[in-house]
């Protein structure tokens, strides 16, 4: 089976503007491989390079060396993004549009027909429970509501692969549960989900496999059951040990 998402020796360096000649290395030869139909959790402490990996996968930051492929297509080609849905870490949408208009705009970008986009917009607004505010501009939404707009726009093209950067950040417990439910349902539909998270409990319950990175390096990857050894109490313990934090 070929991987749907694959990075090969992915290295990303950021050249510093202020201090000439110095560079920050965000990723150090990262190898990831996500198979079709998996829910894959992407873990790591703050600044580990999760968002950078995702940015590279979407073609926003060019790899310093190494490659990244989606569906076997190099991410430098826009067509690699035809069948993916992406939820950014923070909400970046056109604030002057309403939720419905935003979804319609993206539907047009994907070349969906009018009837098809109507159908999907109805379904998605119901799914993320934004129906009551569908005609209000996004700038009047709360953070959690904006996060849900993000989830809806990520699903507009009925993607086969979802790349979510901290999908539950900013959501209330009910919202988190809903997101978990959505992820499970997508999995049942045969979709692949790749998401970063700091919520280890959540990751433990929904993920088939996880990767833990630290300072741009892959520290562990595999099924949750394989990473959590008998000597660990839970994933949190395993995580802390993996990133070299002394556990009592």
């Amino acid at each position, binding site marked *: 089976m070929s991987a749907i998402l694959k990075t090969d020796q992915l290295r990303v360096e950021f050249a510093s503007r202020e201090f000439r000649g110095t560079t920050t290395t965000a990723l150090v030869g990262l190898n990831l491989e996500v198979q079709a139909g998996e829910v894959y959790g992407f873990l790591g402490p703050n600044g580990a390079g999760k*968002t950078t990996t995702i940015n590279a996968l979407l073609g926003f930051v060019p790899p310093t060396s190494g490659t990244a492929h989606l569906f076997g297509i190099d991410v430098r080609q826009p067509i690699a993004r035809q069948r993916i849905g992406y939820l950014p870490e923070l909400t970046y949408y056109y604030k002057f549009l309403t939720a419905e208009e935003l979804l319609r705009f993206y539907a047009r970008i*994907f070349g969906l027909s009018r009837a098809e986009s109507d159908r999907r917009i109805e379904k998605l607004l119901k799914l993320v429970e934004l129906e009551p505010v569908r005609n209000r501009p996004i700038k009047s939404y709360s953070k959690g509501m904006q996060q849900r707009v993000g989830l809806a726009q990520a699903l507009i093209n009925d993607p086969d692969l979802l790349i979510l950067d901290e999908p539950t950040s900013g959501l209330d417990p009910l919202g988190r549960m809903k997101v978990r439910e959505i992820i499970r349902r997508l999995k049942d539909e045969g979709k692949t989900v790749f998401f970063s998270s700091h919520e280890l409990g959540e990751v433990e319950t929904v993920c088939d496999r996880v990767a833990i990175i630290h300072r741009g390096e892959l520290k562990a990857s595999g099924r949750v059951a394989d990473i959590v050894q008998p000597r660990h109490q839970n994933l949190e313990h395993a995580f802390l040990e993996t990133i070299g934090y002394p556990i009592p």
Partner: protein
Amino acid sequence: MKTLFALARLTLTELYRRKDFYVLFILTAVVTLAAGSVNFFNDEKIIRYVKDLCLLLIWISTLLISVVTAARQIPAECEARTIFSLLAKPVTRGQVLLGKFLGCWLAVGLALLMFYAFFAIVTGSHEHRWPLGGYLQAIWLQWVMLGIVIAMSLLGSIHFAAPSSTSTICFVLVAGIVVVGPHLNTIALQQPQPLQTIAYTVYFLIPHLEWFDVRDRLVYGWASPAWQDIALASVYGAAYAGVFLLLAWLGFRRKSLNPG
């Protein structure tokens, strides 16, 4: 194509929602009032002067609108980071650029139509003359000219950092091209050697926006330019807009957007 229109539409919606159109209404009111004042004069010379002034006003305000809106587009997308959600879709940067161009161009087209409609109605009701063909030609030529300006501003917005400085620089540049550009060849003749060649080169490189200016013909009621001249001017305008867009695309394609 669908993508381009979706992007253009987004630009129009934004302009509309940002209430930028209010500025337009105020400007239209000024033009209308100014044009309306011809009713108080009976002297042919003063009427011409007023009409000339109105057309100059239209000329300057559409230039200003073009530069300011076009220069803001891409920096604003980057600043609000909406560009990332957009580029995560199967959209190329070239399409984003073209879509923005189209949106701005359509927007100033609408503004032009509105300005000229008011101008025509107010002066026409006084003089009982409706040179529709002349107006259409003037609008078209000015629209093509603004296409060059928009493409130029987009190019500028990709190379200069802040949108505010881009607008200013572009506007100064455009003003220079309009005011100094036409006379650069005569100026060149009076210069010592290295300067003369430079001035000549600049004269041949810059787009001659003044060629699109047919205000005098409207004011004095001269014969309209021949259609083949208009076609030629359109081709000339399209070529310049195309070159600027190409340069903008080359810059934008390689630009690091630096997320995070």
